[in-house]
């Protein structure tokens, strides 16, 4: 079974500083990995994904994430945080099973990011 862990319920960072939101995953085979962001009273918005290829993935709003297979991690990063980045961030995984049709994502519990002016 696939699973995702986001070890930090909350991350606080000063505006202009780099930010990291951590995610580790567990799958039997190869993963597809995703980051979503949820602003207050809004649905989830897709940020970026790792499918294959380059381990460093760039996404929306200046975010990037690094896939590390040996550490089974997919941490979200941004070089310089903005106050407007304050939101709830979710990591998700889908296990690639050849021939299987399910596209079910398993989500982490979310990390609340607060960027302090």
């Amino acid at each position, binding site marked *: 079974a696939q699973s995702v862990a986001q070890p930090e319920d909350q991350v606080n960072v000063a505006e202009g500083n780099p930010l990291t939101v951590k995610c580790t995953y567990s799958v039997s085979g190869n993963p*597809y990995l*995703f980051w*979503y962001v949820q602003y207050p009273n*809004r*649905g*989830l*918005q*897709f940020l970026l*994904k790792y*499918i294959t290829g380059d381990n460093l993935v760039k996404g929306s709003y200046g975010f990037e994430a690094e896939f590390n297979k040996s550490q089974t991690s997919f941490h979200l990063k941004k070089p310089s945080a903005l106050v407007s980045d304050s939101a709830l961030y*979710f990591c998700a995984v*889908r296990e690639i099973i050849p021939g299987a*049709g*399910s*596209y*079910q*994502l*398993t*989500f*982490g*519990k*979310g990390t609340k990011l607060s960027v302090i002016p």
Partner: protein
Amino acid sequence: GAGVSQSPSNKVTEKGKDVELRCDPISGHTALYWYRQSLGQGLEFLIYFQGNSAPDKSGLPSDRFSAERTGGSVSTLTIQRTQQEDSAVYLCASSLKTGSGEQYFGPGTRLTVT
């Protein structure tokens, strides 16, 4: 283009009543998902539809929950005899079947059972 839409945006109901939540996926998306998001929790998978295949109902928490998808498009999630623990935000998402299966989410329906 139009994204995933859900209605109503908010629903307050009395314990024991039935409720129906609606989802309109993105046109052309063959896969549709329902999730539940409770306060302080992540997203809990409920049910998945893919084209004309039998739905994956493995996430439905009890037999009070059911969902339909008519004509491969609009979906309705029905909760019968609602309980207070059903209070949550119900999110719908859709995706293309091909490739990475990246999901696009609607704004959700906030259900409050009193």
